[in-house]
């Protein structure tokens, strides 16, 4: 099966600045894929190259097998992009904006689908409202609607929940999950790592224009973090043998970083041997934020 997105040795330079350095990446059809990285890592540049907004200095990119330069008509029809910035055309109502966007994609009469999109994004009662009069959250929903008017198999969401309230965020993710279940490939960039952890099956991390990690979310969590054990001891003193494992010390106790769950037993044995009494103990799962920080600091 052709990958939904294929990036091969893509380099992008802006004068002396190298935004992307030999990036290669495959995203399979139907994946919910996360693209993470700090500001300036090259996420938006990569998305812009896929969307045809930027032109790669070298390398190739394909959407559903279509080259984004040589077969731009097909590749753009296969792609829906929700941009990071809250942009809108102040001359038009919500329905007009969606109808016009449909027309750009060659769809003459798309009313039935536009009504469905409006319904799903809870915009039906705002359909005839001018874009200027909408709140930021509403404008964000319209942007999502505009990316979906042509039913693209691949949907890219570039930080779609930035500045969005919790309620809308929940609604939005429910909708995007449904799209993914229905077969759409979703590519997500976000700074909310808990969102990426909860939603994405696979994650790539970009740092200074290079991919520094690319694996399933579960593997990333396992590979780099192991687990943490939070302990409250009596006396409140950590045995010297466990000091090398100490990740954090506070009034509430000690947090030890372990490479694997199996080390929990060794910690307990050490504590017993030292005569320390365990008042409270909690084994904590690693989270993506810790993985992310570790990878970025390597």
């Amino acid at each position, binding site marked *: *099966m*052709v*990958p939904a997105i294929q990036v091969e040795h893509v380099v992008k330079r*802006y004068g002396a600045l190298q935004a992307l350095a030999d990036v290669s990446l495959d995203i399979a*059809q*139907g994946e919910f894929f996360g693209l993470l990285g700090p500001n300036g890592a090259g996420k938006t540049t990569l998305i812009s190259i896929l*969307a*045809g*907004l*930027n*032109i790669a200095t070298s390398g*190739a990119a394909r959407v*559903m*097998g*279509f*080259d984004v330069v*040589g*077969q*731009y*008509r*097909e590749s*753009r*029809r*296969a*792609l829906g*992009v929700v*941009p990071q*910035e809250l*942009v809108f*055309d*102040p*001359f*038009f109502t919500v329905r*007009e904006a969606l109808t*016009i*966007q*449909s*027309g*750009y*994609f*060659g*769809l*003459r*009469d*798309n009313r039935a689908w536009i009504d469905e999109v409006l*319904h*799903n994004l809870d915009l039906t009662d705002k359909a005839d409202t001018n874009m200027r009069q909408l709140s930021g959250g509403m404008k964000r929903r319209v942007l999502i609607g*505009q990316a*979906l008017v*042509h*039913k*693209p*198999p691949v949907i890219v969401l570039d930080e779609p929940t930035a500045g969005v309230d919790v309620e809308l965020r929940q609604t939005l993710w429910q*909708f995007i999950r*449904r*799209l993914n*279940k*229905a*077969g*759409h490939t979703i590519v997500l960039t976000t700074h909310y790592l808990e969102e990426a952890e909860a939603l994405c099956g696979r994650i790539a991390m970009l740092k200074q224009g290079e991919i520094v990690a690319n694996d399933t979310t579960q593997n990333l969590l396992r590979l780099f973090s192991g687990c943490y054990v939070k302990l409250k001891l009596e006396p409140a003193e950590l045995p010297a043998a466990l000091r090398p494992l100490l990740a954090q010390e506070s009034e509430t106790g000690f947090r030890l970083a372990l490479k694997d769950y199996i080390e929990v037993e060794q910690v307990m044995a050490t504590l017993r041997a030292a005569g320390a009494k365990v008042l409270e103990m909690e084994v904590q799962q690693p989270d993506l934020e810790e993985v992310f920080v570790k990878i970025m600091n390597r």
Partner: protein
Amino acid sequence: MKSEEKNVALSPVTGGEPAPRARGPGRGEGVHSSLFTPHASAPTGFYTLFYKEWLRFWKVNVQTVLAPVLTALLFLLVFGHTLRNVSEPYPGIVYTSFLVPGLAMMTVLQNAFANASSSLMQSKMTGNIIFVLLPPLSHREFFFAYLLAAIARGIVCGAGVLLVTVWFVELRFEHPLWIIAFALLGSGIMGVLGIIAGLQSDKIDQLAAFQNFIILPLTFLSGVFYSLHSLPPFWQGLSHLNPFFYMVDGFRYGFFGVGDVSPWLSAAIVAGCLTALSFLTLWLIRKGYKLRH
């Protein structure tokens, strides 16, 4: 639902079954997924962009149509009144009659330029140009849609000036085809220049500089308010280097059957400029000049 949409088997709302996945092609061969329509109607994209540009100015027609017509009327009132006793620019043609085609053409030119340039520059400034850049529109569709909308606004405004002034000033329509031809060619050139200015400008002051230091002087020195014969020889010679002069003179020829130069020469120069500028602009858009980075 249209036949072109029937392939879209997937409905997130109804939770329909995922459409069959496309089989993988070789490198660069592409694949026609049933999730989308690879060959949807291409002219629709061009038509939609033109229609969007039309709506953009028509929705604010007080500002984009009525205001320029009013400005032209004020010019007619002031110049027509103060210069009513000057000698006839051409035999049998009083100054106010001579002035009206010039004012109409000036309105056509300025509004055709303003439409394309302000739309593009504002879209770039606000970022909503992305809505035009993400869809599968070719550089030709992009160019001709903006151009046609600019021509449309120019013609609507010019027609507005004529419709209002024809009640106060005696006008002849000796060669209507020349009138139409020069209105189209003139608005076409200004539409293309507007696209170039819109592409080039990232800020309002850059566009204002283009307008104030290039478009406005060339328009005012094109013979809108005077016949070239009334100028000293040096200025007459200099005016012949101004392509705007040929647009105005040819347009005026259509009304009175007389002009400072042959309408064929004017048409050839204006059409040549339009063709050259169009090729340049098509090349710029194809390269993604200040659009795709």
